[in-house]
């Protein structure tokens, strides 16, 4: 596996050889959207694409390898079973990697927007881009050297706004990591079918983690309701 990746990277470097230094100018500013979360999503998208392409390439290589083994050592015994397993897990891994994003989005949509099989509407779920406090016209923090007429409540509102933003960041990271680790589990299925039990566990805990992250605010809200609304 490592050898294949190193080989691919070296091949790319050889192709990319050109004249001169690539970084004599100032570093590039990648246009990745207007706000922070859009930019984060942009890079997440790039990483996910790389992982999915990697999964596709590896699945093709491992299926082809299984085909070669069929031709050269094809026997109905132990070897035959091993080759079957290789093909099955290559397909499973590819499906897991391709569907990782859709799967996480489906869980999020199901838990937050739909009411299928649930009598309660879970609409307390996260808002990834918190709104700037309108009361104090945003968080335009003035210079310490300027006299200012910012109200006393400004620090509290801005503090809570940034706190919410940090929580949103943590949430978005959890979701992104969830998708990336699910697709990584797909790659592991393709490359290490003999460790399928460990990968099953990884997949299950990954899904549990995603559900916990999606429901985090809801859990806090429910606890709050338990203690405060006692009717």
């Amino acid at each position, binding site marked *: 596996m490592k050898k294949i990746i190193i080989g691919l990277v070296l091949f790319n470097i050889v192709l990319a050889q050109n004249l001169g230094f690539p970084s004599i100018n100032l570093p590039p500013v990648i246009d990745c959207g207007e706000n922070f979360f859009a930019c984060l999503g942009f890079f997440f998208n790039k990483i996910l694409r790389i992982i999915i392409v990697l999964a596709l390439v590896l699945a093709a290589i491992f299926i082809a390898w299984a085909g070669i083994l069929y031709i050269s050592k094809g026997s109905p015994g132990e070897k035959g079973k091993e080759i079957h397993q290789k093909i099955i897990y290559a397909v499973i891994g590819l499906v897991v990697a391709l569907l990782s994003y859709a799967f996480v989005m489906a869980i999020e949509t199901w838990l937050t927007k739909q009411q299928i099989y649930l009598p309660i509407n879970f609409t307390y779920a996260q808002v990834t881009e918190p709104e700037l406090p309108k009361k104090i016209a945003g968080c335009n923090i003035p210079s310490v050297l300027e006299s200012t007429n910012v109200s006393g409540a400004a620090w509290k509102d801005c503090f*809570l706004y940034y706190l919410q933003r940090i929580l949103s960041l943590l949430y978005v990271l959890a979701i992104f990591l969830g998708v990336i680790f699910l697709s990584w589990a797909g790659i592991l299925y393709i490359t290490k079918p003999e460790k399928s039990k460990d990968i099953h566990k990884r997949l299950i805990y*990954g899904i549990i983690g995603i559900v*916990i992250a999606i429901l985090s605010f809801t859990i806090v809200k429910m606890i709050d309701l338990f203690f405060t609304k006692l009717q």
Partner: protein
Amino acid sequence: MIEPGFLKLINSLFNLIFVLSLSLLAGVIIYLGIIYITSPAEEKIKKVHKRWGLILGGIVLVFLSRTIPKLIEMFFK
């Protein structure tokens, strides 16, 4: 007697601590979710399982901290 302004300040401080602890709780829950996602090691998962109990205890304490002063006030009235 204590000045009302000072009492308001204390009250705001308690409210802030309460909001902070709730935000911290949400943050810790998301963090535990990230650990579930990223670490396949059994030992780490077991540690996370143990942590849930502590979190539950912490939540109960935080909410009780709001009700205990009220209970004491009711007792003396």
